[in-house]
């Protein structure tokens, strides 16, 4: 098997004639961390719902983990993909943390005797082992999203999609989730797709798929896409802070290398200063 996800000539429309997704094709390799980047309304979240079969494509093919997505394979595909949605409250199904993690296990027909072990293992993985009996109203947004991740991990998918999973969280919650995702990334074989408009988060991706008006504008290494100031500003996306500085300095005739990383920029600037 070559790719974890293969998308060929995929189109989708909510309303007749209005292409929400317009003939897009892309591949995602096993173990990669991919960011799908675009402003609100560019079609990013629609792609996630198509991949997991919550929306029905108009045309094109989707192949996930070797299974072509169709009615017959729907549940096989869903077993391969776990998805964390934007709103922490509306995806908490169980009465307590414990029951919420169990929900997916019940659907997978995991025997009752194995559930408690799985629940505590994956609760530990997201650092929620002390909250197993808590009700959702007593948890913060970040904690609820961590429970959502545990619920998904317990179903041992090959792919995790984060559909703007941090956009409704406060900075502490956001940090919790981003750290957790980076921990998961270290586990080989896990393919992670992050749907976001946060440039500072997308920096950590291996690959970026840049989306606008339902079309792929560009797909490339994160470094190359995030260094393309003209493209980013044309699509009304943020420009990484470090890049803004190097760009401004270049205009002043100072020779400096483009970078996305603030620490790297600091080093360069210190060297420049000591040269004087």
């Amino acid at each position, binding site marked *: 098997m070559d790719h974890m996800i293969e998308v060929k000539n995929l189109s989708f429309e909510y309303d007749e004639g209005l292409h929400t997704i317009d003939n897009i094709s892309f591949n995602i390799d096993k173990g990669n961390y991919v960011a799908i980047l675009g402003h609100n309304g560019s079609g990013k979240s629609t792609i996630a*719902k198509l991949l*997991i079969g*919550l929306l029905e494509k108009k045309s094109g093919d989707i192949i996930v983990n070797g299974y072509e997505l169709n009615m017959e394979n729907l*549940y096989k595909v*869903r*077993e391969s*993909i*776990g*998805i964390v*949605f934007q*709103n922490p*409250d*509306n*995806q*908490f*199904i*169980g*009465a*307590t943390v*414990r*029951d919420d993690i*169990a*929900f*997916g*296990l*019940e*659907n*997978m*027909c*995991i*025997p*009752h005797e194995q*559930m408690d072990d799985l*629940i505590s293992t994956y609760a530990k993985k997201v650092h929620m082992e002390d909250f197993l009996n808590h009700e*959702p*109203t007593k948890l913060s947004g970040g904690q609820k999203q961590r429970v*959502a991740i545990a*619920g*998904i991990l317990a*179903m041992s998918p090959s792919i995790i999609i984060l559909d703007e999973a941090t956009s409704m969280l406060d900075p502490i919650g956001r940090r919790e989730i981003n750290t957790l995702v980076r921990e998961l990334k270290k586990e080989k074989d896990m393919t992670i797709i992050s749907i976001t408009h946060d440039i500072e988060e997308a920096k950590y991706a291996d690959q970026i798929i840049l989306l606008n008006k339902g079309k792929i504008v560009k797909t490339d290494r994160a470094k190359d896409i995030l260094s393309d100031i003209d493209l980013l500003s044309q699509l009304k996306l943020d420009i990484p802070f470090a890049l803004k500085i190097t760009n401004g300095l270049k205009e002043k005739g100072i020779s400096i290398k483009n970078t996305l990383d603030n620490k790297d920029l600091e080093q360069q600037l210190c060297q420049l200063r000591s040269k004087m």
Partner: protein
Amino acid sequence: MDNMTFGKYIPMNSIIHRLDPRLKIVTLFIFLISVFFDAGFIGYGILGIYVLMCALLSKIKLSHILKAIKPMLFMMLFLMFFNIFLLKTGDLLLVLGPVKIYSGAILQSAYIFIRLVLIITLTTIMTSSTKPLELTLAIESLLSPLKKVHFPVHELAMMISIALRFIPDLLDEAKRIMKAQASRGVDFNEGTFTEKIKSIISLIIPLFISAFQRAEDLANAMESRNYNPEARRTRYQILTWNLSDTVALAVTLLVCFVVIVMSFLI
């Protein structure tokens, strides 16, 4: 809405809390029947002792039970009032102009009062000592024979448990919308009839929109976690029937049997 005590689960570690929720539902049902058999004050005394034992064993504070009875007090007095003036059995005790009060009427009214207090107390003990989730499981388990006639027992149970899960969230949402509209000059307490209608619309429509949004999100989350109501699922929460449940059932049956037999002997 904040001080709703009736029906709220109070986490505690007691024998009653640990009993099988199916037993509790069945017990309540049997009790409801036997309480309507008139076995005189001795019969109600026996049932009263039974309820008192349940209350003591559940470790639930008396004040909590009284709080649950308080809102019903008006209804109980109302019923008693009618009975006293309308029933004409037993001896004539008192004549107040056109109104005649009979001894039988007083007795009946007292019985009604006692019955209602007993029922409310036992129901409160049950809801305070049983998690909503357990009640749902018990309902599903007790109704499971209906699956044979294709009654969607599992779906019903899932619906109840999701409704229970989202009630606090929707209450919060309603409070938030009321405040947001109050900030736009809505007065939910005063105003003319048309103003009141408008205020209610300004609350109801956003609340519905938000509820539908939640429903859609939740359905997506459930489906993406491979939920298929028609497929076989294993269960995490399993109800287990213990010896203590059998004992409790036996005691209940015995008490109710005695009361019912007494009612025929009197």
